[in-house]
């Protein structure tokens, strides 16, 4: 009785009633996510930004994540609709105005993966891949990771994730989780330029993180989200306007030392996580990059790939 379709195949009424019932099941990479809490801004967002994603109006099986977008449970003096993400465990949830439901939705999914996923080593990183393997970019917020991820998509890479590298326990293979790329403030026009206007979601204005927009995952990214990849390049990018382009090859230990802290569940998984992170370097080489523009970062990556190939040959 339950069928998997794309969001774009569903009517607004169907989505609304499924969200109300709390029975909307969103399939993304290795996770099945049950979403509840209907609001117009969320439906708009799903229809726009998740249009190509696989969903079920009624779940055919149990799920990894239950995300409830509900009203904040506080007594308020003035009534104004608000929303908080509730992933089923206690999280610091900021009540957001209902127009920011998309943000609450994205935050809720991120929290669920960061804090509750144990089946993969989760590393705060952007990941893209081509037929030769994956590029993992681990960086702090504001270091240009999202822009770089978006730029690599235009170079023929497919999107794995903008937020989390999911590293398989045991085989250290990277798992796609093609969620939309989150763009903040000044990166929005840059990516709009790169990707084209039709790939950018409407802007959520005045959020706690400033203006936010999303670059949608492409249908091809979503349809290949079962295809895993081995890492070929591990990057620690740093963007600062006007910076001279620079790259430095890191030895394995130094790279491990920088990846461990970027993992949200390393301590939780212990030895399995250490071994998986170590195994990433069976095929991958690591670089630290700094650059002042997207073009520079792309040519640094080309150089790094060339060096890696030369070394292998």
């Amino acid at each position, binding site marked *: 009785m339950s069928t998997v379709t794309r969001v774009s195949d569903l009517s607004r009424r169907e989505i609304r009633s499924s969200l109300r019932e709390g029975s909307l099941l969103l399939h993304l990479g290795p996770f099945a996510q049950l979403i509840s809490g209907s609001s117009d801004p969320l439906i708009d967002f799903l229809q726009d930004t998740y249009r190509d994603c696989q969903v079920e109006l009624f779940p055919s099986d149990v799920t990894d994540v239950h995300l409830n977008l509900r009203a904040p449970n506080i007594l308020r003096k003035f009534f104004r609709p608000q929303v908080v993400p509730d992933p089923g465990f206690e999280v610091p949830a900021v009540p957001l105005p209902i127009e920011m439901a998309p943000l609450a939705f994205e935050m809720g999914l991120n929290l669920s993966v960061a804090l509750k996923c144990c089946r993969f080593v989760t590393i705060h990183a952007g990941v893209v891949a081509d037929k030769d393997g994956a590029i993992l970019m681990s960086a702090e917020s504001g270091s240009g990771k999202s822009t770089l991820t978006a730029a690599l998509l235009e170079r023929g890479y497919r999107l794995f994730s903008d937020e989390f590298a999911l590293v398989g326990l045991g085989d250290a293979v990277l798992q796609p989780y093609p969620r939309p790329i989150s763009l903040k403030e000044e990166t929005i026009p840059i990516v709009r330029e790169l990707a084209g206007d039709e790939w950018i979601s409407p802007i959520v204005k005045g959020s706690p993180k400033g203006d936010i927009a999303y670059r949608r995952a492409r249908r091809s990214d979503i349809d290949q989200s079962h295809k895993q990849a081995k890492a070929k390049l591990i990057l620690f990018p740093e963007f600062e306007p006007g910076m001279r382009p620079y790259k430095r090859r890191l030895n*394995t*230990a130094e790279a491990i*030392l920088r990846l461990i802290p970027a993992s949200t569940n*390393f301590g939780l*998984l*212990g*030895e399995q996580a*250490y071994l998986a992170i*170590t195994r990433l370097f069976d095929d991958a080489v690591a670089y630290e990059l700094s650059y002042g523009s997207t073009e520079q970062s792309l040519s640094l990556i080309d150089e790094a790939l060339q060096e890696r190939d030369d070394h292998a040959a």
Partner: protein
Amino acid sequence: MAAGPITDDMKWRSSSDGYIATEFDDTYLVFVKASAETHFLNFLSFGIVTETESVAQTATELAMNLRRRFELTDEELTQELVSLTLSELDDTGLIWPETV
């Protein structure tokens, strides 16, 4: 800070089953399985770990053996530094007094 009382006659042990180490440039990235913590050890602290693996030793014995192994004099590798490093290592669970 040590992980418990330390006396001079304590003999220290370690086991290579308890950790995974990666070496680079005379420094060791050491993952401790029991605590799931990762530490950086230099040649001295890692030397203490490997030295105590085969036979339990007091701080004094350790200092002597390490000087021999690394070709260092009493002044270069002081007893005090060995004891200090022992208490740092004690905190990681990489080494322990033999009865524990």
